[in-house]
């Protein structure tokens, strides 16, 4: 069924649209970093050669990633199925290793220094390994993904690196692992789980927004209406009324105990503060049990919503057509912190306005839909699960990153795929895409 020629020529069978989009994104990324770093007093050519600026470094990263991409396309697809299990184990070991070898960058010990002054973030790479491992597990003939047991097993595989990330104080990276829900859902995860998750999220938000008493009244009212309207049904089935009541009790418990517990004991002070500042409230850090020691040295720091405020100003000041290439005052004046990594979207928004951001979002949307199309045309479950994992990871990064720059989501430090400055991040996404392209080139094959 498979053709030999497909395996030998990397250009044949690879999806050109994704390749073009990939290069377009990387180019836009380098341009955005250039806008952030641009300084009219330095000469362009000399800084390019010296490789001291972020944008020149990013060019070198991109060239390296290009080579890696070609290399992946030249490999055998079976290589990825074969290596899926072992790579996951290596990834987990690397993450554990960071606790001993880790270098402290921005307060999180998630980087391992490697040769040449570069640092590696195993948590980033682990996304790839987890995707492969999940694909491998679900595609195994003995796995019946309609069973709860396999759901739990898959969830465990995903949760392990996520937990390790939390232990490394990388909340953003940990959240990314929820992106695998897409793939699991596609493969048969009952929608009720998504609905429950969504309800829980709504409940948490409602707890933050509303007065607890009002919320309790609302919940009780909803339960009462539900019971009274379906009174006849409940007469037949007495268990149903118990279900409603237990849901009511769980919701109530969430409001009263779970949410405060999460904010005071699971999240760190700055995270709780960020989430509270999203809805315009102030979080009292003295309640936080997680990071008592940190709260002492808060004096003189910029207010916590400074980033988001400046980021919104930058994007908003772009207006419809933008202020023009290299003309953004927010960018030039370095008002937005972390602008070449997590807040890179702001330079684009300021320079090119709504036209630029909408076009950019269009590109991303096209990119995601293209990958979904690729996923659906796979014959092998492995490739499909992997493709959906890629979709999930990209989507989660894009949605969370852009939402946080425009004030729709609390600030969590995750990069914008292919755009943000950073070798690890660029390499991860490159490898994710190129493995997908390699698998897609062999879509006629059934991989296990």
């Amino acid at each position, binding site marked *: 069924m498979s053709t030999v020629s497909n395996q030998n020529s990397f250009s044949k069978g690879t999806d050109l649209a994704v390749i073009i989009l990939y290069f377009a994104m990387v180019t836009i990324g380098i341009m955005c970093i250039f806008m952030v770093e641009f300084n009219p007093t330095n000469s362009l050519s000399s800084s390019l050669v010296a490789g001291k600026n972020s944008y020149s470094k990013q060019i070198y990263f991109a060239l390296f990633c290009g080579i890696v991409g070609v290399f992946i396309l030249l490999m055998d697809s079976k290589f990825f199925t074969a290596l899926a299990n072992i790579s996951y184990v290596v990834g987990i070991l690397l993450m554990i290793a960071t606790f001993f070898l880790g270098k402290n960058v921005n307060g999180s010990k998630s980087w391992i220094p490697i040769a040449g002054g570069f640092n590696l973030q195993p948590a980033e790479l682990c996304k790839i390994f987890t995707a492969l491992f999940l694909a491998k597990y679900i595609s195994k003939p003995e796995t019946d993904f309609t069973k709860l047991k396999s759901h739990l097993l898959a969830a465990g595989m995903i949760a392990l690196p996520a937990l390790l990330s939390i232990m490394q104080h990388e909340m953003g990276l940990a959240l990314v692992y929820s992106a695998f829900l897409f793939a699991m859902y*596609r493969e048969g995860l009952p929608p009720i789980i998504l609905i429950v998750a969504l309800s829980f999220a709504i409940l948490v938000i409602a707890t933050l927004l509303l007065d607890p008493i009002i919320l309790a009244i609302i919940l009780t009212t909803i339960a009462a209406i539900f019971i009274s309207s379906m009174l006849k049904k409940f007469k037949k089935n007495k268990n149903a009324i118990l279900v409603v009541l237990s849901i009511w009790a769980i919701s109530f418990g969430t409001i009263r105990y779970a949410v405060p517990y999460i904010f005071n004991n699971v999240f760190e002070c700055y995270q709780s503060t960020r989430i509270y500042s999203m809805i315009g409230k102030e979080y009292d850090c003295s309640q936080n049990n997680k990071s008592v020691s940190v709260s002492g040295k808060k004096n003189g720091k910029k207010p916590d919503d400074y980033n988001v405020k400046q980021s919104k100003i930058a994007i*908003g000041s772009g207006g419809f057509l933008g202020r023009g290439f290299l003309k953004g*005052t*927010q960018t030039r*004046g370095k008002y937005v912190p972390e602008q070449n990594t997590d807040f890179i979207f702001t330079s684009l928004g300021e320079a090119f306005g*709504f036209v630029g951001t*909408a076009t950019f979002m269009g590109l991303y949307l096209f990119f995601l839909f293209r990958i*979904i199309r690729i996923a659906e045309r796979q014959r092998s479950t492995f490739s499909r699960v992997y493709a959906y994992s890629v979709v999930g990871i990209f989507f989660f990064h894009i*949605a969370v990153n852009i939402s946080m720059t425009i*004030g729709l989501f609390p600030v969590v430090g995750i990069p914008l795929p292919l755009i943000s400055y950073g070798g690890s991040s660029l390499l991860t996404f490159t490898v994710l895409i190129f493995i997908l392209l390699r698998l897609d080139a062999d879509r006629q094959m059934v991989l296990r």
Partner: protein
Amino acid sequence: MALYNSNRGGIIQIIIGFVFVIIIGQLISLQIFSNKYKLAADNNAIFRKIIYPDRGIIYDRRKHALLENTISYDLVVIPNEAKGVDTAALCNILNINSEEYNKRMIDVIIKNSRVKTGIFEPFLSPELYAQLNENLYRFPGFSLTERSIRSYPYNTAEHVLGYVAEVDVNFLNKHDEEGYEMGDYAGMTGLEKQYENVLMGQRGVKRFLRDNKGKIQGSFEKGQFDTLAVAGRNLYTSVDVEVQQLAEKLLQHKIGSAVVINSKTGGVIAMASSPGYNPNLLTGNQRRKTIGILLTDTARPIYNRAIKGQYPPGSTFKPMGAIIALDEGLIEPSYGYNCRGAYFACGDPRKCTHNNAGHAANLQIALANSCNSYFLQVFRMAVDNPKYHNAKKGYLKWKEYMNSFGFGRKLGIDLPSENKANIPDTAAYNKDFGNAKYWNSCYMLTLGIGQDRMTATPLQLANTMALIANEGFYYTPHFVDSIEDEELDDKEILSKFRKKQEVTKISGDIFKVIKEGMHDVTVYGTAAGIKVPGHEYCAKTGTAQNPHGKNHSIFVCFAPKDNPRVAVAVVVENAGYGATWAGPISSLLMEKYLNDTLTVESKRKSDELATVDLMPQSIKDWYIKNNKTDFLAPIEYNNDELSDIWDMEMVSENNPMTKKLVDTIQKTTDTNSKKTNPLPIPIKSKLNRDTGALLNNKKKKIPINKNVNRI
């Protein structure tokens, strides 16, 4: 299994699409529907520096600068950047405490926000500037900026020039679209206000790009939005600084005003109002202190009496009354009135200073002797003119004449807030006399001798002299002859000063008669004792009764008699006879202008006049009461030569408020000098009437500062 769940790919697409729609929605709201972000970005990053141009300079007729610009330094601060300031050192240098430091910081923030530059300490002294400049590195966020402030090298003409001051909220509201900002300075009074647009020039704005640490990164967009500062243009006035200074000197220790006009052009040569103030004290850091003192002073030193003071013109009005009667054909120059010391035709007799027969035998003689009865009669004739059928209409005609002479209306001088004084409307008398059918010339009889409700400003009085001097026309009195680089707008302003103002169609012959009469005033009439060396001149004295105390001493004149060049009006409040005080002052001013110098005798006279203290007692009492005795003039005199005239200014011993003063006088007796102050004109008998109890006859020194009026 894949087929079984294949619709889920679509659901995932919908979820993705939904999230993207939310994001796009927020982008639309941020980028398209709110412009506050653009503003916020500009506020962040664009630093506007205002470049203040030099204000224009005001010159006198010989190109002496009446005011100039000098550089002063301000200590300014951007509150947001004032972190890690060595507050103790700064407070030490500025001699303030930390409380004051915090207070000023808050003031700056309130006025100009945290990120803009605000003035922390204005007008640094040179020593302070040097000290701060050396230590500036210890005060991040603080910097020193130059600004140009006014200085007055001749220390004169404060009422004319006016002052500049920081604009307040009211000003900003009024001049909304003119680009003023908090902290700007603008002309508030005088020529500074009138010609603000000319003098201010055009401010420049430079835009700089500033980074998140407030560091300037360079000009914004290569300076393409920058505007250059354009210096203010200079004014060339008709003022003669020496005449002006003489006028101010002569009015020292008196309350009053002098106006000297070039009758040929309408250009004002001098305009003094006393008391005045030292204009240099209203610039720089003394301003805050001085302005309060000036505003609360009961003698109102800021008030320009020359254009705002309303005085009954008294006898100085008589020539105008005569002109009306002559023009209406009611009298001939030969018309005489048999005055027997009073005017009896309207019931109560109105007194006249003369009672010898023939002192009003014709117009010329009546003018020379300033016969009240004659001019009362002439006024009645004008009002009862049979041509107009009734007294009301007659009065209206008379008023029309008055207005055309410049009385009762604004002349349009180029100073703000000129007062039109008062020629009463018929409405005023309607109220008094029921209504028109009871109108009778007797009711407002004393209008005929410049009393009743008639008032005029010194400027209006001087202008009538120009009118008579020119025999029927005048130029609107003005200061500014020309403006540097005159623009179309300026020409429009100045053109009205270059236009002859004809006064109805009164024949030149009438004016010649009046001139002769006014000349006779100076030959054998009421001003016979006052001479201008080398020139024949025409004048009219006035002693105006007023409800506020003693008569005002008024004198109007022009010179030379043939081909007059200068018209003068002087008013000295509550001083007595016109010829006694206002007369000599006027003659000296004319002499100074016409001869460019004073004779030795005149100089001596001017020095004497300058020391004469004619301040009304009520004002002195106020100074004593408010513990401001240093505002009183130090008149030192020798008891042996003590003239009664001085005693009128003495303080009653019975007045408890003055006891303190008397005590101080006695304490300082020993240090008394022997300086004497002979009087220019002895008018002992007249003034004695007003004297209170005399001080005992010892050598005394009344502690009155020589710079009485020049605070």
